[in-house]
């Protein structure tokens, strides 16, 4: 089993490998954030929007960038790798803790939305009839609202906390998962081995878990990756609008928002968390693409 996985990884195209490397780096940074970061999450360490190693103050003298950074930081009490944010906190530290908060919340939300979506979708596919009709029409109603507006509405009424955030996004996302899992389960449900299990007298839980789930797994796993990206972006968008994670907790979306003003002064600070969001999203997508192709049985020569 493990050998099969390793073999599949070795045979993966370079894009998938790149994506995997990105994910592994992100997860490592996320897990070891307290060890790797030079400062505590919320400590103010310097001036507002101090430059990082890219600063070109000394390039006229023709010194390499990293030497330049040493030059600038020689007199400083603390070294800031990526500069500081709008309150003078170390951007690198914030980025690591931000990864922690953003990624873990996105992951929990995606898992929750899949739990809800898959169980409802499979239930609709196996029971059919009014259960299917009821669930599907309910999902249609939720999907009729623009997701962001719907989330903003609920969050501004209920108030923002991590728990509420997770539940709201998970439910909104579960509608998409529901549609996919219902469709793939419908395909499997008509197979004769499911009929055999029904005729054996198996309960619905067995049908869903043992007969249908293993055979619908590839498209669902691929969808999991995509959904994770969407949740992650959605979370960042909410933070950007001020309804996501509340300060001083670091997260990538609000880091972009808080530092957005800097861009008018030609300071790159807000681009750093934005790039982090973009890179992780692309990385996950590369892996998911590969997985989708494998799941669909497509080959390059076709």
């Amino acid at each position, binding site marked *: 089993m493990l050998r099969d996985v390793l073999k599949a990884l070795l045979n993966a195209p370079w894009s998938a490998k790149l994506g995997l490397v990105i994910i592994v780096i992100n997860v490592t940074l996320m897990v070891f954030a307290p060890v790797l970061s030079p400062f505590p999450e919320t400590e103010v360490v310097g001036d507002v929007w101090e430059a990082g190693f890219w600063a070109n103050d000394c390039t006229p003298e023709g010194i390499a960038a990293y030497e330049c950074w040493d030059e600038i930081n020689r007199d400083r009490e603390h070294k800031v790798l990526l500069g500081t944010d709008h309150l003078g906190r170390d951007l690198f530290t914030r980025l690591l803790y931000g990864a922690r908060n953003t990624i873990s919340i996105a992951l929990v939300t995606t898992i929750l939305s899949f739990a809800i979506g898959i169980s409802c979708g499979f239930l609709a596919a196996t029971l059919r009839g009014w259960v299917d009709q009821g669930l599907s029409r309910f999902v249609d109603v939720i999907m009729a609202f623009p997701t962001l507006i719907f989330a903003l509405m609920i969050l501004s009424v209920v108030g923002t906390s991590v728990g509420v955030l997770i539940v709201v996004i998970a439910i909104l996302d579960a509608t998409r998962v529901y549609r996919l899992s219902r469709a793939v389960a419908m395909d499997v449900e008509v*197979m*004769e*081995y499911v*009929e*055999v299990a*029904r*005729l*054996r*007298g*198996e309960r619905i839980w067995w049908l869903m878990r*043992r*007969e249908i789930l*293993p*055979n619908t797994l590839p498209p669902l796993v691929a969808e999991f990756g995509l959904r994770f990206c969407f949740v992650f972006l959605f979370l960042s968008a909410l933070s950007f609008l001020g309804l996501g994670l509340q300060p001083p907790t670091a997260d990538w979306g609000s880091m972009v928002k808080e530092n957005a003003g800097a861009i008018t002064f030609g300071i790159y600070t807000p681009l750093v968390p934005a790039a982090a969001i973009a890179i992780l999203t692309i990385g996950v997508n590369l892996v998911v693409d590969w997985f989708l192709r494998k799941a669909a049985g497509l*080959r390059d*020569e*076709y």
Partner: protein
Amino acid sequence: MQGLRIEGFQEERWQEIVKGVDVELDRGRVLGLIGESGAGKSTIGIASMGFCRPGCRITGGSITFDGLELTSSNDENLRQLRGVRISYVAQSAAASFNPAHRLIAQYVEAPVQHGVMDMSQAESQGKRLYKRLDLPDPENIGNRYPHQVSGGQLQRAMVAMAMACKPDLIVFDEPTTALDVTTQIEVLAAIKDAIRELNTAAIYISHDLAVVAQVSDRIMVLRYGEMVEIGDARAMIAAPREDYTRALLSVRKVREDKVHHAEEGDTLLEVRDVSASYGGPGGVPVLEDITLDLTRCNTIAVVGESGSGKSTLARAITGLLPPTKGSIVFEGKELPPSFKQRDKEMLRRLQMIYQMPDVALNPRQTVQQVLGRPLSFYFGMEGKAQRERVVELLEQIELNARYLDRFPSELSGGEKQRVCIARALAAKPDMIICDEVTSALDQLVADGILRLLQRLQNELKVSYLFITHDLATVKAISDEIVVMLNGRVVEHGPRDVILSPPYHEYTELLLASVPEMDPDWLDNLLHTRAGARLREGPISEQLT
């Protein structure tokens, strides 16, 4: 074709499918290619057009068509050739026609595209061909869509399409395999006419030797991508040289001696005036007033063409499609119409085996899991006891403990069907419904399965309700026969009564339509029938 080698990409590596086969075909002659599935027949057939399926490649040998080397020709040359000088008739006409266009529009496509003739010429020639191939209403049938004509008619329309440009070579890839015996005759007759008419060469691919014998001059027997035997059709049928050919030729004589048990003759299942319809009580009726009895340790065969309602009968008995009328009595107790209301014990005693073992086994479960579940579900058998029983079951179906951890994808078609049988046996049933269990298998494998089923009946005293369209199977396995047509029972009785004269009209038609190992069989049959005018359209329509 000389020393043709073709490789296919399978299980992450290239495997040779065709291993150096030489084929030579003269103008106006017909070559029959015969072999089991996986023998490489279709691959060779398609290769004669200079084409191979995605995931395959031609690695050696040469294909010469009328002096032109096809393996090294460019795509443009091949395109010019295909459809005009070489054409192809696929197994499933239903899947090969574009459902969104009328038949005639698809017919004229090739001649017009290749500039052989203009639209109106092609259309009038198409109508002539439809008439020649005995399609009903040849003037207007072209205006129908593929779903508006029957399977046999569609296959004949496909033959007409292949003939449109008067090709020099037509490749027929199992054109009658998916059809009923009575429809098969119409298509075979059309193909034979077509070849005679155009004086074209043809390659006829089939796994049924009797069918190939009707149309070919020469026959080539293939196995595992290699040639076993080639020779004149008549000579081969009369005196096959190789053992393998002899095995293919041997008519099924798999009836084993029946062991008689004391319980035999007790009525196990009674079906009383059962009617069923799809789409609720007001829907289309599929079964009307079916009555039959199944006694213990006996086999009752339900025979009929597709659409006669035989599989629906199985669904009604198992409770998947609750009957609208009538009752099903099992050992004197009336069963609830839907399987949902039946208790576990009842479900256990009535098991079912399906036609396609591929979809009847969960691809993500090992043999151990497939067979273990009914044991733990019905008998609460777990752990070591369960494992031992599974091995015992595997031995009963002539497999062994090495198969325990295999997934269905690692089994051959015959082995899969055996595992399905073992799954049914695991429940220790009194009765098994076998729905076309041998139809998807090669003949030799199917014989093995039938023999196994009979042995198990002798050992385990189980009764079979055997649904099939294949009369050879019926002869081999049944004690009693029920002949069905359009949802009704036409004839019902012991095997020897049904299969000996005087026959019922429809039974006789079915029996006469089974191809025989006689190259003149088709001509003789058509000759006899021409007098009786039975050749127009599906005969079943005339009977009702």
